[in-house]
């Protein structure tokens, strides 16, 4: 331990929730002319230590010294259902019953069985999470829905507003035409997000070992790119097959979705797995892994 201080002063400004709240940042509540380059502060949302590189009042710049919470923001434990809460949304009809399939050597799967299901259902994750401005989700799907056009799946980012939470998220579903075509849509509160494109994706394998789907979500405008007046928020979805047909290993060209879906200020503190069906469905979906990570380029 230090036994003599080189000066009577230290450089630590304490802990702040969110990089936008670090001292002297534009819009930050702490504006103090005493801030100097080289001062340090801690950002508690992502667990990152920052050093000040420009102390200008209202325009300070901070650089991350650590990678912070490089692990997942949330990840299914691949063991049981304890991470999931009660259904957030009452469907129009029918049920979805979650269970665990432990018969696979490579690991457990989450089984979601739909019985005469119609409407919207979301299984929320119990853990309350704090989403960074830019994040990535991964999903490994095995058995895909058998029916066309109505059998949707959704990785949702939801408010915790009780029985009828407000959802923001991605709708990934099987279309009615072209056989086993799958599409991705932005999803907002029970309907597709305005501006969500409508192009079909390529085929995706519907048998084992399934495939990966991943999305990159920028839910708030980039703080260094707001001067043009555009929100520049985006969602990009892509997937690849993992075996079973001619698309093995291929990028399946799911729509890249770029739309102005500014979720700034919304308390997105829940995630879950959801379904949407226009008419009654009997189907089964199995999932091997689900996780959300901070994007390495989150600023």
């Amino acid at each position: 331990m230090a036994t003599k201080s080189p000066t009577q002063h230290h450089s630590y400004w304490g802990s702040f929730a969110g990089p936008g709240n670090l001292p002297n940042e534009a819009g930050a509540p702490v504006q103090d002319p005493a801030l100097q380059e080289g001062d340090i502060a801690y950002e508690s949302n992502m667990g990152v230590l920052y050093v000040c590189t420009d102390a200008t009042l209202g325009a300070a710049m901070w650089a991350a010294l650590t990678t912070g919470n490089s692990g997942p923001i949330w990840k299914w434990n691949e063991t049981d259902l304890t991470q999931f809460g009660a259904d957030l949304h009452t469907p129009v009809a029918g049920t979805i019953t979650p269970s665990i399939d432990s018969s696979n050597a490579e690991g457990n799967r989450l089984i979601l069985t739909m019985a005469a299901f119609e409407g919207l259902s979301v299984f929320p994750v119990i853990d309350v999470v704090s989403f960074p401005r830019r994040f990535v989700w991964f999903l490994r799907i095995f058995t895909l829905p058998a029916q066309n056009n109505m059998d949707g799946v959704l990785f949702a980012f939801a408010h915790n507003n009780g029985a009828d939470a407000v959802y923001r998220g991605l709708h990934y579903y099987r279309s009615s035409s072209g056989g086993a075509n799958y599409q991705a849509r932005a999803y907002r509160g029970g309907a597709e997000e305005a501006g969500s494109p409508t192009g079909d994706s390529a085929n995706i394998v519907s048998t084992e070992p399934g495939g990966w789907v991943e999305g990159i979500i920028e839910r708030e405008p980039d703080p260094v790119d707001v001067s043009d007046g555009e929100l520049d928020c985006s969602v990009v979805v892509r997937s690849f097959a993992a075996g079973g047909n001619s698309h093995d290993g291929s990028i399946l060209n799911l729509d890249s979705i770029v739309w102005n879906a500014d979720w700034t200020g919304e308390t997105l503190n829940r995630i879950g797995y959801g379904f949407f069906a226009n008419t009654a469905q009997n189907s089964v979906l199995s999932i091997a892994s689900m996780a959300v990570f901070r994007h390495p380029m989150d600023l």
Partner: protein
Amino acid sequence: MATRSPTPFHNYWGAFAGVANLPNVNGSATQNAALEAGDIAYDSVTSALQVCTDPTLNNAAWAPV
């Protein structure tokens, strides 16, 4: 160099021989409820500055800077 301290308190806990001996790490001899996320310490074995990301007593987490 800082010419004014933003708070009366600094966050440096000193040097420790090994990550296992950092404050509040499970099994460490130093357990102190004053530890906070964002505090720093030096690991003299790896010559790495560490930042505390979870100050929980007997279950603290530290990350290298």
